[in-house]
């Protein structure tokens, strides 16, 4: 289940990208852009960094991953299914009635999902609560939380940023999926949440910047996080929305749109080359 080799991790991420495209195509609905930008980081977390057990999803000492940008649920479901949290056939039911795979992650419905997210801005506060619980109980698990750059326009993200630093949550690592695009366009043109590094530094966090598609850099950042003491970490991951599918890359239109048959065929064809 766990993968140590970089080439294998990369191949795994591309295989999961195919699952993402198939799920969204099958559902005729979903969010490919932000799933494809996030999947490399999530692959590293689940296959290399995190201590977790699909057979025992509620293991008290497991590391937690909280997908605050819940619309990237296809990426999370692809990983959880591949790891064996639930049967892979379930992916076909994504977004369908009576399915365990809701459009956005649902804690009560899906094994491996830690928090019901999708309404933006709330997952990071939740992650702080999980990290505080570890401190109270003197457990040594880590909490990983992925937020979006568009999501950072929510005020609650900054409430939680204060909270994390206030409680010296060095067991909390936030990954910012910095792909520049939100539904209506470029984040800089819309709300301008930048600059990120300066803001988070001034909020008292340790800040790293990496290429969110470079597996060596992703792994190194998580290793660095584990060595930071006394404060929470933010990894600004520079990513490409729609990464891996030529016609989806850097296109805001592909935030929340399903491919048609022809587009799906082309996407899978392109992704297969890297598997």
């Amino acid at each position: 289940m766990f993968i140590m080799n970089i080439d294998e991790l990369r191949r795994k991420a591309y295989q999961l990208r195919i699952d993402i495209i198939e799920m969204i195509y099958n559902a005729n609905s979903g969010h490919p852009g932000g799933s494809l930008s996030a999947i490399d980081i999530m692959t590293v977390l689940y296959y290399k960094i995190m201590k977790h057990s699909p057979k025992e999803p509620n293991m008290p000492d497991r590391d937690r991953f909280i997908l605050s940008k819940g619309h990237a649920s296809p990426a999370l479901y692809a990983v959880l299914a591949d790891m064996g949290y639930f049967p892979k056939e379930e992916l076909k039911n994504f977004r369908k009635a009576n399915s365990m795979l809701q459009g956005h992650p649902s804690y009560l419905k899906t094994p491996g999902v830690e928090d019901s997210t999708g309404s933006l801005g709330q997952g990071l506060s939740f992650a702080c609560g999980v990290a505080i619980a570890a401190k109270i109980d003197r457990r040594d698990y880590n909490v990983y939380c992925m937020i979006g750059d568009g999501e950072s326009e929510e005020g609650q993200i900054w409430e939680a940023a204060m909270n994390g630093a206030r409680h010296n949550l060095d067991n909390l690592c936030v990954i910012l999926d910095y792909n520049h695009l939100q539904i209506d366009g470029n984040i800089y043109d819309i709300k301008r949440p930048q600059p990120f590094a300066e803001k988070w530094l001034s909020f008292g966090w340790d800040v790293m910047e990496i290429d969110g598609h470079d597996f060596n850099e992703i792994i190194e950042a998580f290793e660095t996080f584990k060595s930071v003491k006394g404060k929470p970490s933010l990894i600004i991951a520079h990513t490409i929305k729609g990464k891996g599918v030529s016609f989806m890359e850097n296109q805001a239109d592909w935030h929340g749109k399903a491919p048609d048959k022809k587009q799906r065929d082309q996407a899978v064809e392109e992704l297969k080359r890297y598997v």
Partner: protein
Amino acid sequence: MSELYSLRKIYGETLVKIADKYPEIVVLDADLAKSTKTQLFAQKYPNRFFDMGIAEADMVATAAGLASCGKIPYVSSFAMFATGKCWEQVRNTIAYSKFNVKIVATHACLSVGEDGASHQACEDVAVMNVIPNMNIIVPSDDVSTRFFTEEIAKIKGPFYMRLPRSETERIYSDNKKFVFGKEEVLRDGGNVTIFSMGLMTGIAIKAADKLRKNGIKVNVVDILTVKPIDKDTIIEFLKKSGKAVVCEEHEINGGITSIISTIASMNYPSKLRSVSITDKFGQSGDWKELFSIYGLTEDNIIKNVMELEND
């Protein structure tokens, strides 16, 4: 005049009292610990108390995270902020996942008094009631407050408990045991029923006793559990009397008047009247004066009962 009790003080004292028995309890507040009285817990158990600052949305979602790890978070602020400022966080991050978070809000509705409409949540029960998985308790005196502060720790799932700012008289005997989901019958054997909630129960009893002296018997049912409401008791009393006055220090829209009206119309259509706030904001002033201005009085209850009685 009987002794007056501050229900929020009872809440804070009870938290301290049960803290050792329930080591999973943690308490969060949003810079109002002195007013909500969670400060009493903070002083005794500083490592289990978290002042989350003036950030209610962050507070309730953090509480959900703590609950996901087995903690029993009690989250306090004024009713206005604990239900209004973070309604969607309560819905999506707490209730949707059924996390074991206890929202105990103080300073509900007109009992706030001088701070005025901005701080007077008279719609808090309505907005919590529409959230699936949410449970709602509204104690009416110190005994019920003390009981339910502990009881909700024993029952898994999200709770909203509503407390006033002002003080009130004791209604129940000292060691009274209540049942979650069961309303309390305080007066029986009458032709008209008063269903009352929170501070209005004390006022309703006085109205009922005054009426009784004048030969008019009324029932009083204290709606302690608003959700899931005790339909059986409500239907039983509608059948007994066929006429009821619903009393609440809350908006008529979405409060227990609305809830009981729905039960009545679907089960046993009855003549109902309401002593409540009718689509109005509150205002500054001494809380007793405000109750009088908004018609939340003994006299108004009596007037409504008499009109039903003579109907």
